[in-house]
């Protein structure tokens, strides 16, 4: 026993020396700045570009290193509250930004952004609610995305249908879908081919003029016949028309469930004629060869719009080198970084100026993509609206409630009316809870309630309202487009 013990100890000691030899301590002549992001091969290229950009512009030198923690928000929180998180933090949305800000992890970057040139004017205007909170900036986009419909033209042609239009209303979409599934699925076998993988209910609701929150973001208004209409329409498309797969259909396909699942493989194999995703789908689609592709907008109920989102970067409150980390955000607005996003196909570059370059519009290696890229940039520019975030409820809670009740509706636990009502009730209960726990927020809430009452009164009388009364980014755009704003 003794011999065994000391033999193992000796082997492990030797292994430790070997490990120390292959893992030397990190030494750098420059300060080390950590970037908390996802484990992604493109990050190495971006870091190399950043170091070169610093050198070329004679900016302060630093060593940027990765901390690949995006998968688990717990790591960011544990490190953040312990005071040792990375200097630059990837945040997946404006909802994430609000959460991280609320627990004190994100630094207000408004002034340095203006001084160094990475303020909101350097990105798409629809990004404003995503990167700012109550007029203060906390992030700058790493990329910008919207989910459009990728079309496999070979599948559509196989069904004897013409290419789908860029924009289509709900009825046209349904008609197309019914004709497609009837043409490609043999009548006597289980259906394995569908028109599209999924659609997003918030975007469909917005196309009927209904957002999750009211104009002043003080209440959830999903208890509305328009929400009921969308829920029932989706169910019809899944269960009656069979143009979307049911959960069972998806489960019979999917043998793995990673990031976005095997949607693109099923698209490539012809099981889905179309799928909903951002321009970043190109990263994988390019590996499948030269597909015959087109891009359309999601169907709309009369008000075409798309939801624009972002993966952004902010600066950690307790960063040891905030003044250096700001340079990384400045780099995100630079030509070097934006052109890397253009080449890589990782959604849209943060700066819209680079969506007008030849490299973006007509990538020389991918002629089959010509004419598709601008559909994403134009959609974000012309129709893109950020998410609506109520200051009184966390975005994650909102989405959890919406998803739960929609799942309950799908499983026939609720009727569409009940799902709509319960969603609104649950979210509004959260709002009231926040106000009870944070009485300091009540004054602003009451002010907004008074404005909301005035908006409702004016709308009931058919009168226009001033833009400054409206806090919800969707209704700011919607009211403007409908001519409901005071001149």
């Amino acid at each position: 026993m003794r011999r065994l013990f000391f033999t193992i100890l000796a082997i492990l000691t030797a292994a430790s020396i070997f490990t120390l030899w292959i893992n030397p301590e990190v030494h750098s002549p420059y300060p080390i700045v950590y970037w908390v992001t996802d484990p992604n091969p493109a990050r190495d290229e971006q870091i190399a570009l950043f170091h070169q950009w610093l050198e070329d512009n004679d900016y302060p030198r630093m060593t940027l290193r990765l901390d690949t923690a995006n998968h688990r928000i717990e790591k960011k929180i544990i490190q953040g509250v312990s005071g040792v998180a990375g200097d630059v933090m990837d945040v997946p949305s404006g909802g994430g930004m609000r959460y991280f800000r609320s627990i004190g992890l994100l630094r207000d970057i408004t002034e340095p952004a203006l001084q160094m040139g990475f303020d909101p004017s350097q990105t798409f205007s629809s990004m404003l609610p995503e990167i700012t909170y109550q007029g203060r900036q906390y992030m700058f986009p790493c990329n910008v995305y919207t989910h459009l419909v990728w079309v496999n033209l070979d599948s559509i042609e196989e069904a004897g249908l013409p290419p789908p239009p860029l924009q289509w209303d709900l009825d046209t979409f349904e008609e197309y879908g019914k004709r497609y599934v009837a043409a490609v699925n043999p009548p006597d076998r289980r259906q394995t081919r569908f028109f599209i993988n999924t659609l997003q209910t918030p975007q469909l609701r917005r196309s009927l003029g209904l957002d999750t929150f009211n104009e002043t973001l003080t209440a959830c208004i999903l208890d509305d016949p328009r929400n009921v209409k969308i829920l029932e329409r989706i169910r019809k498309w899944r269960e009656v028309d069979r143009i979307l797969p049911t959960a069972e259909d998806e489960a019979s396909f999917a043998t793995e469930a990673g990031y976005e699942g095997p949607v693109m493989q099923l698209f490539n194999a012809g099981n889905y004629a179309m799928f909903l995703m951002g321009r970043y789908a190109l990263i994988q689609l390019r590996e499948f060869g030269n597909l015959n592709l087109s891009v359309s907008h999601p169907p709309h109920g009369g008000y075409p719009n798309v939801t624009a989102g972002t993966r952004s970067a902010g600066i950690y409150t307790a960063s040891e080198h905030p003044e250096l980390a700001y340079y990384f955000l400045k780099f995100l607005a630079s030509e070097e970084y934006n052109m890397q996003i253009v080449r890589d196909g990782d959604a849209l570059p943060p700066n819209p100026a680079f969506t007008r370059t030849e490299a973006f519009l007509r990538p020389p290696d991918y002629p089959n993509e010509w004419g598709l890229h601008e559909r994403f940039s134009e959609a974000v520019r012309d129709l893109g609206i950020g998410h609506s975030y109520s200051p009184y409820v966390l975005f994650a809670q909102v989405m959890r409630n919406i998803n739960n009740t929609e799942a309950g509706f799908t499983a026939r636990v609720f009727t569409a009316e009940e799902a709509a009502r319960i969603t609104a009730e649950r979210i509004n209960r959260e709002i009231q809870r926040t106000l009870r726990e944070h009485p300091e927020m009540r004054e602003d809430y009451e002010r907004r309630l008074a404005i909301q009452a005035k908006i409702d009164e004016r709308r009931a009388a058919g009168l226009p309202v001033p833009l400054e009364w409206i806090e919800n980014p969707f209704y700011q755009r919607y009211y403007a487009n409908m001519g409901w704003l005071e001149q």
Partner: protein
Amino acid sequence: MSTTDPKPRAPHAEEMAQRTLRRRTWRAYGLHTLMVLLSFTMVLPFLWMFLTSLKPLAEVGLPDWMPSRFIWSNYVQVFEVIPFARFYWNSIFVASWVTFLQVFTSALAAFSFSRLQWPGRDKVFFLYLGTMMLPGIIMMVPNYQIMIHLGLVDTMPGLIIPASFSAFGTFLLRQFMLTIPSSLDEAAEIDGASKWRVFWDIILPLARPGLITLTIFTFISNYNSMFWPLVMMRSVEKYTLPVGLLFFDSTRGQSTHLLMAAVTMSVLPMIVLFVLLQKYLVKGIQMGGVKG
């Protein structure tokens, strides 16, 4: 010639015996068939993993399990995309150190709780066991804070030291040591052996099955450990396998074919360990009433 034939059995009894034998044989066949079928359900995920590791990306996740062509180069690509060998080494290194230290410290504690008499021993033992009732995530922030103060964040000792002490291991070995007759230590002490000698030369050799069981449990759980290494480690070159495998699932999409190739290679030590030491594993499950 007279014959002394044994008394012939009643034809009825013989037929009954044969029928019983036949029934038992058929039952055994049936049972084994059922067990083979059930074991097949355990093998299927591994089969899917292996076949997927040989597919091109475009075929991953499709209903057809068989690849249209077998792409063995996926295995080579794993080493090109990530520092897989380094992650592999780090995992084995950390799991080996933790196993060594945890078995040793648990054996010492178990000896104390099972063979030594001291005031409040059982109370302390139950208090120690109580730590098993706390969900790991609750201890995460305090443990992390301690590691910061000790300067062990982003270091291998930061992964090894906190995992070197285990209430479960102590419990498992204590239960085992309680089955060893106390007359053995008494005899040794009469012969002049010290407590340390009793532990080292009498109890430890006799507790060998328990030590092997704990070795297996500890090695497997630390080899597969994901969250603590993820939180503790910042430098990519110090990642262990479960953390390193996340490289195949990023915002660039999931490279499931490479992920499965990497996982196939990473489960090999576990499969070898299980095949070699499965009887100890089963014994441990029976003894500790745990699933491992």
